[in-house]
């Protein structure tokens, strides 16, 4: 099971700068997985692009970034890595518009699967409007993607370890905002004691947080940035 704190792992920039092509490719895959949804939604909401243009540009952006290695030029002293990515996207979108009047189709990203249909469903479900602050919006979507991944990982871990009931409780209590059910009601429904409900939920929440931290670690530019993000998101002081 994931522990409360993630194992030591290099920052995304350190991994992207590795000579080992496989390692570099894996690092880029992690980066794309963590950022493609915020990038896509940013293009849809802030740039008011059509779904097709936003999909093309998202693919093109990551392809270009991988081939030309310009995300590796990140300088930690200037901004957070997340902000750097967002600014790069903005520049890329502006250049694309100036170059052809429309987003050009990029090379396919084979590192991870980009489920644009699902992302577009989310865009519609959220009824995204042009954000007042692009940076806040990008951060919000980054956190949504991060938490979504952590929930998926937590579910997988609970399944792997034969604790599906634990996850079902988590779904019912924490992931269903319309359902204000009590621990007592859950205990009756699942044939557990209230203490068991408390402990099971606690375990899944800890697992969720651990996976969120692991994912966060892989998406921050530096250790300092990771510590800052962890403090802001989870109230954690990480040594």
């Amino acid at each position, binding site marked *: 099971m994931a522990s409360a704190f993630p194992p030591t792992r290099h920052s995304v920039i350190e991994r992207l700068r590795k000579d080992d092509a496989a390692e570099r490719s894996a690092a880029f895959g992690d980066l794309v997985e963590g950022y493609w949804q915020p990038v896509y939604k940013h293009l849809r909401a802030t740039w008011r692009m059509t779904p097709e243009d936003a999909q093309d540009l998202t693919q093109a952006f990551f392809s270009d970034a991988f081939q030309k290695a310009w995300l590796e030029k990140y300088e930690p002293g200037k901004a957070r890595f997340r902000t750097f990515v967002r600014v790069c996207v903005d520049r890329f979108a502006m250049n694309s518009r100036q170059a052809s009047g429309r987003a050009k189709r990029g090379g396919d990203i084979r590192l991870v699967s980009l489920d644009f249909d699902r992302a577009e469903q989310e865009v519609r479900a959220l009824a995204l409007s042009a954000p007042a602050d692009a940076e806040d919006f990008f951060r919000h979507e980054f956190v949504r993607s991060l938490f979504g991944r952590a929930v*998926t990982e937590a579910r997988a871990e609970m399944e792997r370890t034969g604790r599906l009931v634990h996850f079902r409780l988590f779904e019912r209590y924490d992931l269903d*905002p319309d359902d204000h059910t009590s621990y007592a009601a859950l205990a009756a429904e699942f044939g557990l004691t209230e203490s068991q409900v408390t402990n099971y939920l*606690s375990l899944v929440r800890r697992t969720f947080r651990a996976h969120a931290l692991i994912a966060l670690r892989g998406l921050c530019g530096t250790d300092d940035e990771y510590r800052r993000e962890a403090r802001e998101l*989870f109230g954690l*002081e990480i040594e």
Partner: protein
Amino acid sequence: MTVTFLSDDVMSRLQAVATWPNFDGLRYTIIDEIGRGGMGAVYRGLDDVLGREVAIKVSNGVPGAELERRLNDEARILATLEHPGIVPVHDVGRLADGRLFYVMKRVRGATLPEHLAGVTSLSEKLGIFERVCDAVNFAHAHGVVHRDLKPDNIMIGEFGEVLVMDWGIAQTAGSGDRDIVLGTRGFMAPEQERAESTDARADVYSLGAVLSWLCGGSGAPRPLGAISARAMAAEPSSRYSTALALSSDVARFRAGHAVDAHRESLLERTGRFARTYRTAIILVAAYLVMRILAAYFSGARS
């Protein structure tokens, strides 16, 4: 990997859950967050060893910081005040990240404003107030001044128990936070607002403000208005000297007696006499009417 879609509501929920303190290796498990203040957050928790629900207050501050000192002081003060109107402390400890926490009884009930939404009887309100005064007076007798008495810091338990909460800025004799204004405006004594030294009479002032709030401010009966006014006198020496003296005056009002804070006119005294002895007066009047009627009819027959 298919990423789970999370709505904004779920994100907020998970964000809150993710910031809950980590009690790994300790005997407590967090159930939910109850509230959050300047000093820290209070959680509903489970004591895994005893299998009972507790309330856990966790410091916001880093170890050694001022906020932590306050939380520590609060726990120690509560531990010295064993009274039915003051929440007992069960345990004090540190989280793995170094933050201080203390564990207290979990109070199930409502804050005073919530509770009063369903209470119209002035007598019941005053009964609650007297019990608040009892707890505060007990603290004063042990050298502790609360310094943040207000309706939100009073809880009414499921069985009608009245509890004075949030002793986070309480001070013991000889300690204090001179030059720092702590408290709640509207309920805070003027000397406290000026960051001067305070004593038990600062709490008497706050109790007067609570009484005024309870009785609806200017709409309160005149004797109660006078009691509040005396408790809230600008000069500490003009206030009731103790919470007990204040409570006793309220009890006198409730019993239908004259109160120390208010000199009655003849009309008021007569009115109070009539209200206090209404039943006896009605009975005597009825008896007299019957006697008169009986005398009249017997005279008419003869």
